[in-house]
């Protein structure tokens, strides 16, 4: 009787110690769901969703405070992915947060730029180089096209330029059967 109690107690102690050790050793830092949502978001850091960046929006979505259809740069596909991940219903992009636009980058008209550094302070990814009273320019490869540099510019010298298609970015189109009017076929 006593030995049985001792064996059970020993087992409980060993298992408890193992669980306690595992809880410390394999502790999950942060919310993995936030990371997963953040990985889906396009990282433009544009704030169109109403949150100051992609990570805060991901946190809000994870907590259930925000809808999944507030991210215009992510587009319909981003919403579908979020819906899949979170098991929520797909919703079309909410119009109040903006519309899906083709990918573009900011361009500074260097003739007009007065070197005020306001856009540099606004850029969330440090993609603008320049100094006070020196001409600024955009690092096009790093620009996410968030448009946050447009409003602070006092001389309106920044414009958004849509990225042209090049041989490196060209994509095969979805195969489509060309529609031929019946009349044309009949004549041929």
């Amino acid at each position, binding site marked *: 009787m006593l030995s049985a109690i001792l064996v059970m107690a020993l087992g409980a102690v060993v298992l408890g110690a193992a669980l306690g050790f595992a809880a410390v050793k394999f502790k999950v830092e942060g919310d993995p769901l936030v990371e997963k949502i953040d990985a889906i978001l396009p990282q433009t850091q544009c704030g169109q969703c109403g949150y100051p960046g992609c990570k805060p929006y991901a946190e809000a979505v994870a907590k259930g405070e925000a809808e999944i259809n507030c991210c215009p740069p992510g587009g319909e596909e981003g919403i579908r992915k979020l819906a899949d991940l979170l098991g929520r219903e797909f919703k079309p992009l909410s119009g109040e947060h903006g519309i899906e636009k083709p990918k573009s980058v900011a361009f500074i008209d260097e003739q007009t730029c007065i070197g005020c550094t306001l856009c540099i302070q606004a850029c969330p*990814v440090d993609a603008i180089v320049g100094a006070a009273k020196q001409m600024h320019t955009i690092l096009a490869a790093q620009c996410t096209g968030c448009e946050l540099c447009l409003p602070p510019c006092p001389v309106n010298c920044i414009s958004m330029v849509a990225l042209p298609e090049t*041989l490196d970015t060209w994509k095969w189109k979805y195969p489509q059967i060309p529609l031929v009017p019946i009349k044309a076929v009949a004549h041929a």
Partner: protein
Amino acid sequence: MLELFRFPGGVKPASHKQESAGSPIAPAPLPGRLVVPFRQSATGAAAIQVQAGDKVLKGQTIGAAEGAFGTAVHAPASGTVVAIEARTLPHPSGLAAPCAIIEPDGEERWIDRVPLDPLGDPESLRARIRDAGIVGLGGAAFPSHVKAKAAIDTLIVNGAECEPWITCDDRLMRERAEEIVAGARILGRLMGAKRIVFGVEDNKPEAAQALRAAMNECDGTSCQVAAVPTLYPAGGEKQLIRVLTGIAIPYGKLGPDFGVQCFNVGTAYAVARAVLHGEPLVSRIVTLAGNYATPGNFEVAIGTPIDALLPLGQPRADTDRVVMGGPMMGFPLPDLTVPLVKASNCLLAMSPALFPPPPPEMPCIRCGACTRACPVVLQPHELYWFARSKNFGKAQEYHLFDCIECGCCAYVCPSRIPLVDYYRFAKSEIRARERDKAAADRARERHEFRQFREEREKAEKAAKLAAKAAETKAKLAQEEAAKASAGEAAPEKVSAGGTAPTDDKLALIAAAQARAAERKATAAPRNTDALTPDQQAQIAEAEARRAHAEAATKDDA
């Protein structure tokens, strides 16, 4: 005799080789204008090295190799660079890219052609291959010097030329076998190959015979010619390796992982020209086949516009489109002004009679014919469903990127589904997503660093302020202590409601004001300080007068 193996799948389309195989290679005349794209390899463009107005010699480098995967581009004829401008390329997209427009002077003056010792240092040989602009001439245009870096046992020289209609490799092997063998030996030595095997489909006995004869002239110890059964796509890299060595290369691996590397016969020939004769790759053999009155093979300068080349074969009147490459893997040219590039092996003229337009696509019935035909042992119907439903993750799990786009599945499909188009669509979508993902990761990293930097700056500022406050406090306490010890007799100011903090604050303000006054006194000297004695005297006089006047007014009042 070499033991041969079989690869799974494959199809046997009508070969149509006899139409163009009979006529020897003829040199094509130089056109009035050459359009040489700087983008000749599959991996990127060369760095432009000429300007409009420059005179160039034949074989002169006009674009330098850049990066690990870059290859050089050369002037295909002596003449003048008229312009550097974007022109439409022979590419399914029909997009434009920078090209050098060269007006040949017809003199064909070569650069100084310096041969290189084929037994020399491997590094310089690879550099020569790169600077001679040699890319895979079988159609993929992958830089050869990169492929030649591998250390291998067996070098396979691909003369299978499995695609219907094309005969440029056949003619090259028949007519220039010796140089092909010499090029193969250079490549074999470069990569440490113990044996070299030439794979030639058995519908080209003359070519195989010519190679054997060429081998007899040099010592034929490690070289072999194997006649492989005619079955499309026997000329695919992995398929030919399997047929000749029995090695089935798994998904996601390449030949060099198993000690085998594969080069096209045209590439071997170009290597021989570059090393033994110092000639960069400025021309290639092109087959004109299909709807022509006089089909044949021509040696054409790179950059010759297609519309200047087609008349050599006299296309028939009902030709409605021209395909670059063969009927299985080629693509229709966006327009006929595009230039010939290093990857162009055939210009197939099509007419509705010869190549009827594809019948309409019907639903997939999951018959599995495509799976039996696939030479890479994929499941094309599954890939089709995944590509069609844009389920790209699943398509990748089914090894979409091992698809060689040979077109066997679409060839056998009873529903006439353009399967390869779906795979190409899925592949380019996946690549675009990977690019976007990389860009997003970069943006996240930069954004996080920016936030970290802002936090750090804020913390630094706060620390500075705190340090300053502490310093002032210490100073004040010191002063207070000094005052207390010095003037104990002085009457202590005790305000009724005055608490200690207000006193502290008042004292701080007073100290600050005193400091400011002091600074003002030292920083701003009066403008009368540094004057000559004369001027001082004048000022004193004026002061005295003013005092006098003031006294007078006072008296009056």
